[in-house]
């Protein structure tokens, strides 16, 4: 999942402050692609009402419409879903991740598109604990085969390729004791698998340009 959190309402209200007009709409566009955290129709409807109430405090009346997209990062699907709904829309407020915001903004270059969310990371959903946790940093050169399926770039606070750093205390990170030390996890995992020799491998500094910017499907 691409993990997002809702922006402070004041910030969103600032974005749309100049688009208050009874005769034209601000379109709140949800996204059903990554399904958690939810940013579909229910969130769109809830956000609409929060902003209407927030607008009242500023003596501003906004006119909203709400809709959602199957995957806002899919330019074709998003264009075909939104085009019929864009008459009379003066601004778009996107509930998607940054990719979705960029996508909509590219499709409708003449309409301002604002993000309602902050985008954080690629995360694993753990339903029982109701948490999402970063698992992958999208580096473009995956080393998970050698680290027991645990990514040190995403999960080590320092992003170390050659850990552990010496600050690991009882399996927790010295910078944030709430977090597991990724290299401690890697050690434990490789031990179970009888592959501790993999820890002897030295990784030179990573070439982050391999993350790239475009791939052909």
């Amino acid at each position, binding site marked *: 999942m691409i993990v997002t959190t809702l922006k402070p309402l004041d910030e969103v209200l600032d974005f749309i402050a100049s688009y208050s007009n009874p005769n034209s709409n601000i379109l709140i566009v949800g996204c*059903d692609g990554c*399904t958690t955290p939810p940013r579909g*129709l*229910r969130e769109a409807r809830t956000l609409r009402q929060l902003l209407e109430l927030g607008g009242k405090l500023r003596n501003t009346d906004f006119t909203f419409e709400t809709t959602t997209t199957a995957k806002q990062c899919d330019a074709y699907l998003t264009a075909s879903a939104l085009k019929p709904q864009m008459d009379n829309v003066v601004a778009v407020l996107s509930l998607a991740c940054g990719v979705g915001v960029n996508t909509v903004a590219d499709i409708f270059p003449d309409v301002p598109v604002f993000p309602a969310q902050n985008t954080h990371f690629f995360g694993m959903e753990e339903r029982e604990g109701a948490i999402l946790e970063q698992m992958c940093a999208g580096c473009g050169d995956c080393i998970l085969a050698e680290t027991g399926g645990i990514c040190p770039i995403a999960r080590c606070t320092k992003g170390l390729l050659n850990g552990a750093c010496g600050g690991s205390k009882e399996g927790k990170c010295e910078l944030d004791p709430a977090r597991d030390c990724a290299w401690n996890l890697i050690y434990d995992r490789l031990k179970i698998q009888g592959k501790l020799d993999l820890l002897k491998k030295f990784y030179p500094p990573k070439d982050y340009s391999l993350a790239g910017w475009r791939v052909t499907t």
Partner: protein
Amino acid sequence: MNEQVIEERVAVKLNDDFCSSCSICSSLCPFEAIKKEDETNKILLEIEKCQVCGLCYSTCPAKAIDTIYYDIGSLTSYLERAKQEYDSDTLVIMCKGSAPDFAGVGELFGVTKFIPLSVPCVGRIPEEIFLKALVMGIKEINILACDDDYCRFEKGSPIIERKILALNLLWGQLGYGTEVITLKRNTLKVKVDRDSCIACGNCVFYCPYDAAKLDSPGSVSFDLDACKGCGLCVAMCPALALELENWERDSISTLVSKLSSEMEQPKILVFRCQWAVFPSLDNGQLAPNIRLIDLPCAAGVEPFHILEAFQKGVDGILIAACAEDDCKLEKAGGKTEHLVERLRERLSQIGLQERLHLCTVAPRYPERFNRELEQFIKKIETIGLEESK
């Protein structure tokens, strides 16, 4: 130290003077709240375990148990009043947990005009009420109970079946016929809009009954025989693709608008778990500034319904949920707290957080609920009315 202990009023009480220690109550109590003390032969009620289902009250042969909810007196006066109001000689008693709207209930029994009596668990109705109904001139009694394996009070549904059997037999002997009382069972079901489904899997994860399945290539299907209509999936669906029969979102929106317009100030709207009964809300006379919307479970309270109510000028919203240990649904405990906390955090950004209050008082302590309600009203009066802002 001079400690003054004031006995708190509780919803169910055992009167030792009348108790014959017959143990019927303790054998029926679904929650093991009533026990016989071996040494003294005395029956003891542990109020902390009591879920106020009323089954003990309705079955005690010695009338040694008192309850403040749906007791014989209040049920009788309701029937007297309702018989005039609905002008019918057919009575329909329905469990809140399984009844569709009144029209739907009528359809189930094939009656159009009837006296409705909606209760949390039909098993709690004492035999006297059926007899009194007959004396009042009621000719036909229909009872809608929850499916046997989905009685939220576990034994209420089987108990009513036995009571009806006995009563019909008795009335047959008296010449009233053997089919005065008809029993039907029902379960509300989830309704799926497959076009809106985004295959997120929330319903599959949350359904306690394995009724939801995620089919490839990515749309959900429900086994309606397995669905118990608890509504948890509906509350957790981010795509608004699910509805629970009789609790459709649009009809709740309509109700929010209607109630908001008829309330006096300060307008207090209560969203309540239907299993959390309280005298101040259930005695049939709500204060003119208080209105009530029942939900299948408080975890099903829809944030946009709360916001809609604020938009319609409601000054304060109280959510009456059951405490986690008292939750009548599986897997729903604690969900309301989480939901309200999240919404309050967002409301704090627009200065409305104090107007939303979650109360998790159990029905066994009616005064505690009243105190919370009073305090909340006071707080709202201090903050000021929403409309004057």
